[in-house]
């Protein structure tokens, strides 16, 4: 591609707003914050979000924001491809869709037809739905799967809202997964053991190669360490593991770097899992990102799930677990089923 970045508009230079939510306080807050943005009125977010043949690679260079109301199903059953950490009632919800980070292998690129970010401004409706679910049983809810909520918190302030909501719902535990470097959020929140901040840890080489715009490994470790020091519950996710030629050295160095800084006693738990993706999503990603080496990797497909060839996958996971168990008890390590 011979395109200079300065040919593109700045990210969030365009904000699409559903007619029905113009007066919502969050809409007003965002539009005030981005007062220079071009605001385009729309009837329904899918009119923009679901257009055919969108170029997700170019859109990444100038992501637009869509402000909308979430309707219909607000909370979903957790996918069997995601880890439930032995929680029985595993759900997830999306108060925003898409991410400001640009991980080449991310399933969102196969799942969504666009790179534009949708913020649903009616988070209170999601809270209401979750409250109903929590009435009779314990619920484990992932709130940052289809986005990186911490990275978007300047825009939405949703982290604080979730933490406050969880404190009033004794049956609810949430996980907020992130690759962000942000530490400032912890200065504003009250720790709650049922709010788990889950940091995805990847070797520096993987971050540089595939996890564009995300925090460096050092910054992720710093942020996780800071959260622990402030009394927050932290999970470390060595998931998805991405294959690289010298994965043994890369993953070993990463584990050493993490536990030289973070006390393993203070970690709630750890997840380990190799990259896995639905073959339908991968097919879309291969079509839309023909120049991405990770998307074009010759994965193995079993029962509609694409993974690294089983021999490599096993070697990678065993090696990582070997490195981790030098620091942490195996009972704290959860492995993905795929």
């Amino acid at each position: 591609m011979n395109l200079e970045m300065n040919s593109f508009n700045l990210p969030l230079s365009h904000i699409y707003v559903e007619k029905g939510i113009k007066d919502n306080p969050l809409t007003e807050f965002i539009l005030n914050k981005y007062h220079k943005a071009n605001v385009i009125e729309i009837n329904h977010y899918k009119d923009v979000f679901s257009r055919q043949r969108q170029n997700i690679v170019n859109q990444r260079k100038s992501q637009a924001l869509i402000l909308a109301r979430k309707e219909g199903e607000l909370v979903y059953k957790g996918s069997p491809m995601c880890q439930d950490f032995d929680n029985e009632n595993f759900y997830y919800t999306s108060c925003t869709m898409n991410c400001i980070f640009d991980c080449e292998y991310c399933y969102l690129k196969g799942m969504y037809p666009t790179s534009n970010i949708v913020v649903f401004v009616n988070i209170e409706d999601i809270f209401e739905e979750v409250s109903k679910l929590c009435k009779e049983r314990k619920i484990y809810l992932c709130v940052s799967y289809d986005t990186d909520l911490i990275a978007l918190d300047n825009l939405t302030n949703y982290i604080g809202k979730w933490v406050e909501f969880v404190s009033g719902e004794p049956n609810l535990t949430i996980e907020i997964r992130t690759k962000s470097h942000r530490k400032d959020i912890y200065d504003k929140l009250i720790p709650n053991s049922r709010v788990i901040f889950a940091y995805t840890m990847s070797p520096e080489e993987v971050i540089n190669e595939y996890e564009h715009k995300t925090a460096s490994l050092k910054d992720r470790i710093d942020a996780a360490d800071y959260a622990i020091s402030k009394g927050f519950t932290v999970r470390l996710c060595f998931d998805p593991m991405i294959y690289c030629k010298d994965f043994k050295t890369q993953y070993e160095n990463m584990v050493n770097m993490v536990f030289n800084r973070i006390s393993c006693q203070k970690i709630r738990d750890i997840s380990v899992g190799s990259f896995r993706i639905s073959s339908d999503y991968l097919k879309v990603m291969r079509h839309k990102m023909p120049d991405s080496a990770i998307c074009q990797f010759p994965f193995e497909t079993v029962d509609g799930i694409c993974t690294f060839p089983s021999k490599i996958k096993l070697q990678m996971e065993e090696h990582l677990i070997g490195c981790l168990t030098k620091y942490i008890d195996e009972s704290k390590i959860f492995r993905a089923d795929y």
Partner: protein
Amino acid sequence: MIVICCALYFEAKPVITALDLRRCNENRFVEEYANEDNTIRLIITGVGEVKAASSCSAELTYLSFLYPQTTIHLVNVGTCAGREDVKGELFVINKITEQNTGRDFYPDMLYRVNLKEMPIICSSKPVKDIESDFVYDMESSGIFTSGSSLLSPDRITILKAVSDSGDFEEVTPKVIKRTIEGKIDQIKDVILLLQTTTIGENNKIDSDKFEKACNRLCLTTAMQNNFKQLLKYASLTGKNTDDILDKMPEVTSKKQGKEILDELRNELI
């Protein structure tokens, strides 16, 4: 490649002159002009949504057989009606409302074209009552719907210069031409910017060599797909796919072919 659509010759004339386009007769279904190296083409569609859509479709279909779709950018250059105080201004359109159906269309606004943005209402006949927040034309929805059947929404740009405020009896060929002429430098800048955004096709695998290698290896269709995937990966990781294809030996059974592919996979990853 940039494909410019204009409804009328008078709209097109300043563009033809500024970009040094010449009449060409490659596609006999449309009136078309092109520059010397064929990187900019212009067609005259005629007035109205249907004519605009059908001409645009004819040109894009023709070009899509010759060039990858990712290398084509469609630009509609034309005049429109708008408020009195914006007469003579050039806008890039961020929303198209088809008046007949009420449907809305959204081009992606990715490129820094340095023009003011405006939503447009596309009507089937000239409009007299102008609402302040819109401009009005008669082709944009036809061009967008036709273009988006082949191109991504970031590859369609609508540029409209305001020629009148609904007093269409006064819109003469001279007025139209003068309106576009007044903004021709900006139009040219946008076109040159968009020209830099066309994407070439990388990682092309020599189809002839690939087919011959598949025959030598006795590969089934599924195995051929796996082989192609391996080659794509090889190409992206800096390997020369021609060398790989040339080295593929002649085997006598599918089983042997599969073994060769397994070896290649192990070698590559």
